[in-house]
């Protein structure tokens, strides 16, 4: 369990302190135990739910509408350079 929490934390870019991590393990355990109860039900004849509401097909037509606040989106980012977002380099090119 501890390893799983570590892995999920890493994937989510979270760095819990050791004590918080311990708490998370306990909480995750109780959640998983709770969900485990579902195993006792026979779900073989039930279709998997992929959405909470029972409706389908919400579409938009293919038309363009320009968003006027693009500058604000840029300014909202931690860093930007002219009209580009600026981020720490993540790829090792060699």
């Amino acid at each position: 369990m501890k390893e799983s929490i570590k892995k999920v934390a890493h994937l989510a870019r979270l760095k819990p302190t050791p004590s918080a991590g311990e708490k998370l393990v306990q909480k995750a355990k109780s959640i998983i135990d709770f969900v485990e109860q579902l195993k006792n039900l026979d779900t073989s004849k039930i279709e998997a739910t992929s959405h909470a509401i029972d409706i389908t097909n919400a579409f938009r037509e293919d038309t363009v509408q320009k968003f006027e606040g693009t500058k604000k989106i840029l300014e909202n980012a931690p860093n930007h350079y002219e009209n580009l977002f600026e981020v720490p380099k993540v790829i090792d090119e060699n």
Partner: protein
Amino acid sequence: MKYEAVIGLEVHAQLLTKSKLFCACSTKFGAQPNTNICPVCTGQAGALPVLNKTAVEMAIKAGLALNCTIREKSIFARKNYFYPDLPKGYQISQYEFPICLNGYLDIQLNGEPKKIHIQRIHMEEDAGKLLHDTGSPDVSHVDLNRCSTPLIEIVSGPDLSSPEEAGDYLRKLRNILVYLEVCDGNMQEGSLRCDANVSIRPKGSKEFGTRAEIKNVNSFKFLESAITYEIERQAKVLDGGGKIVQETRLWNQAKGETFSMRSKEEAHDYRYFPDPDLLPLVVDQVWIEKIKGTLPELGETKAKRFVSQFGIPEYDAKVLTAEKPLAQYFEECVKNYNAPKKLSNWIMAELLRELKLRNQDITEIKLKPKQLARMVQLIDEGTISGAIAKTIFMEMLNTGEAADKIIEAKGLKQVSDTGAIEACVDKILAKEIENVQRYKSGKTNVFGFFVGAVMKEMQGKANPKIVNEILKKKLEIVR
């Protein structure tokens, strides 16, 4: 070689919609960075995606043309990973329930047909564009214009066994998508991208070897070179007693080799789950039938029809149908003047050569099919000679003027007036006494020289048939 290659391709095709997959931002290529972005495609809190109906129809079109089953109910899923070109922290894609599955595409190599299985086609949104060349070793720049433009990913089975087969498959696939008008097929601009899964195994073996994935190959040539290199590299590793590592590699065209793409990010675990922001997509039979009705005649069918309807050689038909606009151009020509083989010759020899030289597209030129057809008709009717026609052709291509007008303005009409030609022949024969002597002494091969001289004297406008006749007659007399 003691190994055989097993190759599968994953092709990403950008759909030709006007707006993005889940928002109304424009998908236009080449706009100023970050001008086609909005709260939805940049992942602002609370913004909600709504599915583009046209994108769905295009995906279904591709599925039908590739002989797929269209799934009645498909679901969008979140593929979770962190990367700066993905502002939401997940890509909306399809996972367990893609929209199309189980299709195939027939390729042909050395005359042998081969069925390539298409496992699935799913819809997804594209990521943004990372620019690493910023002048700083520590930062990258991000343009999110491309983020959330609609893609379909077409996944082939591991059925391809050589670089040439992979190339042929990709060419066929591109041709179909372009004919369907669901993708512009432009590999340079990235509207069509290809990842190749390559592994090798001892010949005859049933088990697959460990594969390497070569990412983002953006031309047919690079695809074939990259696969060729990769097969040799893996063979060398195995021969040296080594093991193939499952990894992602990139193709370096300058060095002519693939190299391992090491990312500082590790451990991909996408944790797919159904996207709660999007409702299930349901496609009923009525909708499918309606889309089926809009499917155009595809390149292969068109080529076969050109052979049977117009009686042109298979080779011509293949060249003419390689691109839909070219096929339309040819057909429009034939509609205006029913001389398919002659028109095909002009298009294949002269027109395509000029387009290549000028780096132009058939849709951009001033010369209209009707005008080209008329020019060929004028040759057939003897109004202009074939030689003069080349001059007229270039003029038409440059100016968009009609052949008749050019002929009139430049006085290029073919001279079939026997009197005028006779006078010219007399003049030449009088001047070329030595050559006439030679002809008399039996060296009849100077005949061609006389024809050339007369044509030159008459600025190429003389009817060559009449020139020949008169020359023959006159030379017989002197002999």
